């Protein structure tokens, strides 16, 4: 690679890079980020992404609330998070610069669209002076690029309106980043053809913008170096990039196929779960039946109706929808029907911050229903793992004839990472047959091992029976108000869920089997905790990581693991919900680390908190 004057532009090899695209929510930053991600994935880097966008589809242009960002971290080795701090920020306007600057470490590169730094836009971002000229960005390497002007010149002559021209500038920025990180334009050029093939002038404009950005990097002498991140040494296999929501949809489809049941998905649109409905509604060829219900209650109820009919009943929502589903979910507890509820958690309470992540529905999933209402809860830890835990949720639901709550969150749902495509033959066998024999049938007769009741679906001759939300007499399932029966049934329902502990893997420990500190997490904190623990271990600390995927019941060895360390730290994006459970169940002095900001933990934050505890843990050294 050479510059215009024929001098080679040096390419520095890097282990890991984190970049962030930021602009107006109408600037196409998510698209630029996703295209960068695709290209990087196909190239073979490990990667992790973090889209961060406002709930408003189009907040006022140039305003601070309207800023949309997309962060991607990619590396030559295994990585678990989208990176704490961007090495490079692409800021398309002053508002994007202002909202993202606090996340940048000193020395980070900032590429700004200098055309957007007009007095009007500066005022919208509440800047009293121009940060490009007032010296406030001294700690960073700032590259001013008149992106709008250069891009407009590149797409001249295609007969586009000024608005259409402006809409292509994200591809200019993308092209520039492709040059800087030594990526091929081909995957994006092909994508443009597929996407805009029917509108040749738009396709051409986007291609020109992309190439212009790339060529600008090559010729402008603005950047004295470009960077190269070699492919990662991932486990052998075929990979694709996948978001948590995509993996969730694929996982439940696969689970239905493994269990040889029809998949019925009922859902009411809600951020950030809607993409699961969108995805599953395209799986018609797989016989998937999707149902956009009139409300959350109907979605839950319809899933129960489908499960009653012998299908795999599934519904998905986020926190506010969970609240509405509670009553019907309890009907599934009482009727002991296999349904799965996906809760893609978001910041609350109430409407909260719909596009922002949080882990605050854990206690709600466990206890947010009237009366004694036990049900299993599982939670995937990474976007790709959403696939595996969808299958696990279905396995448990069918084997134990119980509703299951599957807790994802906004960070997992919209974040992406490489997924090693599984071989169908390697996937577990799950499912249960329908009960068909009238001679051995009672609606609430139980399997002696699992305590599951039979699945007797309508259409089976001789098994006509009635179920419902009223308390059931043990075995016969007839309505019963008998006090002793109610006590017995309450215990049976609890025992059935408790016994699942015998049927799930032990809690794995990453690091020493005993030591000074155990960091316990669940859900999407996995990546930040794991990387922090790696760093602490590399620094010689006796620190381990245990990550719970089964939140109810807990793995059988959980207490034993917890008691093997001097201190226990539980980082959560809530005020200590898992910590409360661990303390209650195991009488251990677990300490919390709780930041509820609508965004994931940074690695450094967990590392620092752990260091603090480790310092306190060894008073004798002072």
């Amino acid at each position, binding site marked *: 690679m050479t510059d215009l004057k024929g001098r080679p532009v040096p390419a520095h090899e890097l282990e890991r890079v984190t970049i962030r695209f930021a602009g107006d929510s109408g600037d196409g930053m998510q698209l630029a980020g996703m295209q960068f991600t695709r290209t990087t994935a196909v190239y*073979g880097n490990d990667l992790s992404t973090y889209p961060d966008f406002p709930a408003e589809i189009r907040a006022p242009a140039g305003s601070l609330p309207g800023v949309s960002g997309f962060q991607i971290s990619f590396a030559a080795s295994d990585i678990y998070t989208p990176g704490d701090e961007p090495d490079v920020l692409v800021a398309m306007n002053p508002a994007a610069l202002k909202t993202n600057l606090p996340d940048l470490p000193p020395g980070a590169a900032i590429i700004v669209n200098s055309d957007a730094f007009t007095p009007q836009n500066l005022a919208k971002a509440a800047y009293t002076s121009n940060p490009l000229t007032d010296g406030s960005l001294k700690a960073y390497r700032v590259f001013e690029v008149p992106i709008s002007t250069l891009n407009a010149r590149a797409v001249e002559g295609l007969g586009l309106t000024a608005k259409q021209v402006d809409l292509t500038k994200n591809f200019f920025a993308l092209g520039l980043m492709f040059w800087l990180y030594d990526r091929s334009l081909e*995957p994006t050029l092909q994508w443009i053809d597929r996407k805009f093939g029917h509108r040749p002038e738009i396709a051409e404009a986007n291609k020109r913008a992309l190439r212009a950005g790339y060529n600008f990097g090559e010729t402008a002498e603005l950047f004295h170096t470009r960077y190269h991140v070699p492919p990662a040494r*991932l486990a052998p296999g075929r*990979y*694709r990039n996948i978001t948590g929501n995509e993996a969730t949809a694929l996982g439940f489809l696969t689970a239905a196929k493994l269990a040889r049941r029809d998949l019925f998905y009922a859902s009411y649109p809600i951020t950030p779960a809607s993409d699961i409905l969108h995805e599953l509604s395209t799986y018609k060829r797989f016989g998937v039946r999707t149902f956009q219900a009139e409300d959350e209650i109907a979605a839950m109820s319809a899933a129960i109706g489908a499960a009653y009919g012998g299908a795999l009943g599934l519904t998905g929502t986020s926190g506010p929808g969970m609240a509405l589903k509670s009553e*019907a979910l309890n009907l599934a507890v009482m009727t002991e029907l296999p349904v799965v509820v996906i809760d893609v958690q978001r910041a609350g309470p109430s409407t909260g911050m719909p596009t922002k992540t949080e882990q605050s529905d854990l206690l709600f999933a466990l206890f947010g229903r009237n009366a004694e209402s036990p049900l299993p809860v599982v939670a995937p830890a990474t976007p790709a793992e959403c696939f595996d835990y969808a299958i696990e949720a279905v396995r448990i639901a069918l084997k134990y004839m119980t509703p299951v709550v599957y807790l994802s969150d906004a960070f997992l749902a919209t974040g992406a990472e490489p997924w090693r495509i599984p071989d169908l033959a390697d996937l577990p066998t799950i499912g249960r047959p329908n009960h068909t024999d009238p001679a051995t049938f009672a609606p609430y007769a139980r399997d002696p091992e699992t305590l599951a009741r039979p699945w007797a679906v309508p259409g089976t001759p*001789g098994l*006509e029976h009635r179920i419902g*939300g009223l308390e059931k007499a043990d075995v016969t399932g007839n309505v019963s108000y008998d006090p002793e029966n109610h006590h017995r049934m309450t215990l049976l329902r609890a025992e059935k869920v408790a016994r699942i502990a015998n049927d799930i893997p032990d809690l794995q420990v990453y690091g020493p089997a005993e030591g000074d500190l155990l960091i316990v997490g669940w859900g999407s904190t996995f990546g930040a905790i794991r990387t922090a623990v790696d760093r602490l271990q590399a620094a010689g600390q006796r620190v381990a990581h245990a990550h719970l995927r089964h939140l109810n019941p807990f793995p059988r060895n959980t207490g034993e693991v917890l008691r093997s360390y001097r201190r226990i730290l539980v980082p959560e994006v809530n005020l200590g919900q898992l910590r409360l459970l661990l303390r209650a169940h195991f009488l251990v002095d677990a300490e919390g680390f709780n930041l509820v900001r609508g965004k994931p933990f940074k690695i450094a934050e967990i590392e620092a908190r752990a260091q603090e505890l480790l310092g306190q843990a060894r008073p004798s050294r002072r």
Partner: protein
Amino acid sequence: MTTETTASEATPARPALTRKDFVSDQEVRWCPGCGDYSILAQAQKVMPDFGVPREKIVFISGIGCSGRFPYYMNTYGFHGIHGRAPAIATGLKAVRPDLMVWVVTGDGDALSIGGNHILHSMRRNVDIKVVMHNNRIYGLTKGQASPTSEFGKRTKSSPFGTIDRPIQPLTVALAAEATFVARSVDTHTEHLQATLERAGRHRGSAFVEVLQNCNIFNDGAFREFTDREVRDDRMLVLEHGKPMIFGRERNKGIRLRGLHPEVVTLGEDGVTEADLLVHDERAEDPYLALMLSRMWWPDYPVPVGVFRAIERPTHDALLQAQIDEAIARSGEGDLAALFAAGDTWTVGE
């Protein structure tokens, strides 16, 4: 497709069923004298006529006195939660088009807490037969006003009279695009049987309002026009293709005057049968049915019978058609291919 067939893949080898085959072993626990007994009895009587085996029939209910109905039917039954029976039924029917699904509900269950589900199950033309017991009161909770209680009605929850206007269930069903809408009366047993029979044979959303007496909390709610002595003069039995004539002497009728129905007497002021409205349950537009649904004693005779019965594709059929079309177009889904869709890359050993 015809509306006059049901999921009647009866197995010819089995003996024909009788009313008794549909009586469950559970003790019926409604108050003595409740109108629900008659509705249950008529349902059990007409069930054998459909030729549908018992195991293919499902009764789903919500909460309220009507909610107990499934326990007494010797079929599959699901006693759901308050107002949600249509949603449960929608999910069931979506995955099991082969089943005949009945929803039993009440005025509070269907029109208050479950109003949204009734509305949307009807507009989707989910193939369910909804039987709504209307007693204009909350019975199971012991006597509060319901969405069909008369304005000003004094109840336990409205000691100074309700200040909420009632709604007409059939107007709601028609507004929600129900493809079959009918009304009958608990004590008019033959008419009720015939109405349930028609509903059962309809393919699509059927909504049947049964005027039902709650002898404990709202006794005589409909007596003014349903009692044997007065009913001929105060009720209008709708028959498709027939002029709207009523009265013991069969000398009264309904004529359209401007946008309003008008009660006229045949032979007076030169009124003849030719002047009367002719009932058309198959009209694609809902105007006639909507007008009839607003008629109520004492301004008008109360219409009973089938207000509307039209053909439209059912929800389950449309759902299945999309699946069939997708498979016909591109073949059955291949999981391995779906996994590897889009951009993939391979990492070697």
